[in-house]
């Protein structure tokens, strides 16, 4: 019923960031956004505008309950970014391009002129950075830093 009303007034109700897995490994697929449920929802397959509730204000660095990489110190932003965007980053490192790769390059202070080479290097070292399907973001950060410095 709420969904129908949302449709009518063109707004939608809240979603929150959630943790899919209970583990502290924080791998692929552990950062998802909850929210869409209910029979009416599924049957209408509708999405509408969003009004988010319960969002916190301050942007804090955190590792979001994930294990910290060895190279955590001095790389807080990188750690947070990788943990939050691991799925997309995996796809884009594989493709050798993408804004998330660019963001990692930026956080590692890679000069703009060197970014194409940097992306190619990450792609070439994909299996080193992502050795298995259950790799954790902490390991990914460490490996990326290793590859970047190699």
């Amino acid at each position, binding site marked *: 019923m709420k969904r129908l009303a949302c449709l009518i007034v063109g707004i939608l109700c809240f979603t929150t960031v959630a943790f899919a897995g209970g583990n502290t490994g924080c791998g692929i697929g552990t950062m998802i956004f909850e929210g869409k449920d209910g029979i009416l929802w599924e049957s209408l397959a509708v999405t509408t505008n*969003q009004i988010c509730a319960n969002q916190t204000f301050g942007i804090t660095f955190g590792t979001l309950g994930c294990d910290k990489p060895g190279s955590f110190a001095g790389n807080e932003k990188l750690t947070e970014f990788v943990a939050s965007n691991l799925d997309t980053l995996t796809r884009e490192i594989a493709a050798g391009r993408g804004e998330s790769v660019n963001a990692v390059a930026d956080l590692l202070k890679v000069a703009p002129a060197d970014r194409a080479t940097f992306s190619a290097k990450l792609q070439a070292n994909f299996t080193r950075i992502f050795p298995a399907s259950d790799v954790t973001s902490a390991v990914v950060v460490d490996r990326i830093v290793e590859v970047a410095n190699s």
Partner: protein
Amino acid sequence: MLAGGRSLIGRLAFLLLLSALAASNALAIDSHNAVGLARDIKLAESPEWLSLLHYRDALTGRESAIDAKEFFFSPEGRTDPASELYATIEAFFTPASRWLPGSHPLCRYPARAKVVGEALKLAPGDLPRVECVEYDAYMERLDPGGVTLIFASAHMESPGSMFGHTLLRIDSGEKVGMLGSAVNYAASVDPEDNGFEFAFKGLSGLYPGRFSLLPYWEKIAEYGNMEQRDLWEYPLNLTREESRLMAMHLWEIKAVESDYFFLDENCSYNILFLLEAARPTLRLTSEFSGWVIPIDTVDLALKQGVASEPAFRPSPARIIDTLSATLSDEAVNAAKKLGDGDMEAKRLLESTLSREEKARALEIAASFTQSNYLNRRISLDRYRTRLFDLTTARSGLGITDVPPESLKIPATPQTTHHSTRVALTLGAEEEEGYVQVSLRSAYHDLTDPVIGFPEGSQIQFPWLTARKYQGDGVVRLQELGFVDIVSINPIDRFYKPLSWRVGFSLTRGLTTDDDLKFLLKGGAGGATWLKRDKVAAWLLATGRVVTSPDTLGSRVGLGMESGLVVNQTERARLLLEMSAHAYPYLGRGPDFSVAVRQSYGFNRDWAALLSIGRTKGDGFDRDELSLTLNYYF
């Protein structure tokens, strides 16, 4: 000592004492002097001050849009800029010892402190020295260098999303957009509320609205990955200092709640206050009285020269779509199989497709897999295995070129027709001529120019149509519409959404007597492209309930509706509609209707529509021909 001439040293000493006193008075400005100075320079009426308190001109003088009492130092602060200014100055001068660390007014209101300090030319030593640990950490983390206005456009399966949504992004230096900080104004919704409470509270301001600050990548994930909406990013020409001032003001209002009104004091309206705080010469909020539609706020920012041409961030669904269009059927089929887990990447690599095609197919499949997971169609384990398989295979293919077609940018939101429509129609029904006038508050139907909108989306509420036949002296209410939503979503290789519609109105033309009846209609079905983006067709199974307002006698019909739309050119559009409903338990005959509608959009403001139709029912058979001129504003 005062006796003239007696002691030169004495006089000198006295003069020194006097000048020392005078000098120390000049240095030791206190709140009293500061208030006096502020009064002299009329600081309370300056745009710099007014913009920080969100004052608006109300009927009874100035009133702040902020409802929360805790935002103001003065009990009259909400309606009296001067009393608020003087109370703020007093608060600034209170000693640090009186406050918990970090909660001194200078820490809580840094923008006000800056404006007051600069206007009164205060020196660093004039105000109490305070440590603002949290605020300093906030500013360091944000490192504001610039601001971008973000507009989330409509998604096909969601007619309500046509209203759009705006937020701001604080960028630091030249950083990658994804790393910016999103500033979002939204309602705090009680998850326990049911649908009606939700609609009622949203419309009447019973939800509190507040700002939130979150990493922009989260917004991209929400809008892009979850809702499949494109984002338009309009760079703003705020200077570094203006951006910092905006961030400082955001700190001031971060915890403050205002009443959230879905229609006017909504997301788009409230972020305008932040822009006005950054640059007080901007006149944004004052341009709106009544409804605030998000795209209108973007148009205004463009018109006032603070925003410029947008960058486009396509949703993953759109990327899958444009990439698929560059591939052969074989490659697209492969991509679908890979995405569904029906084919392993190894098999694809062994195929005879070119390296480019393999690479693109894998990229599509990986993105589709992620979408499947986010929409809970597959489990975490299956997702991980599949994504790992696809991405590992892709990485082995090396760097490929970006297909130029995928860089094509669709029509910007600035090409859409405006939200309110008034229409003048000349028509004939069964050879009796009529003149008709119609007013619709919002927003877009299938005959309106579609440029800038997703195909197949319709949302109308409310509207009113009045008609006068040439024989009659009477102007009659022809239709009073409450809501009419249509969502035609053509299926494709990857996504197979449902198409549906729902509507409720009070209308004529449904029965022999041509009286006004309540009509509730709805249904669902499917749609397909006959020619991508040009021709679409749909078929829905529908029902309708026709109720007489006086007797409340109703009849229920079951049947179908079908349609075809052809976008002949960017401006010309042809719509064919057909419906048939039977009334099984009443012994009355079925009714049919068919219509052909040709529309032409001249620009954002004007369009014309030629319509021919026939409605046949139990006891009536009406032909209708009409020509309409639509004006949008």
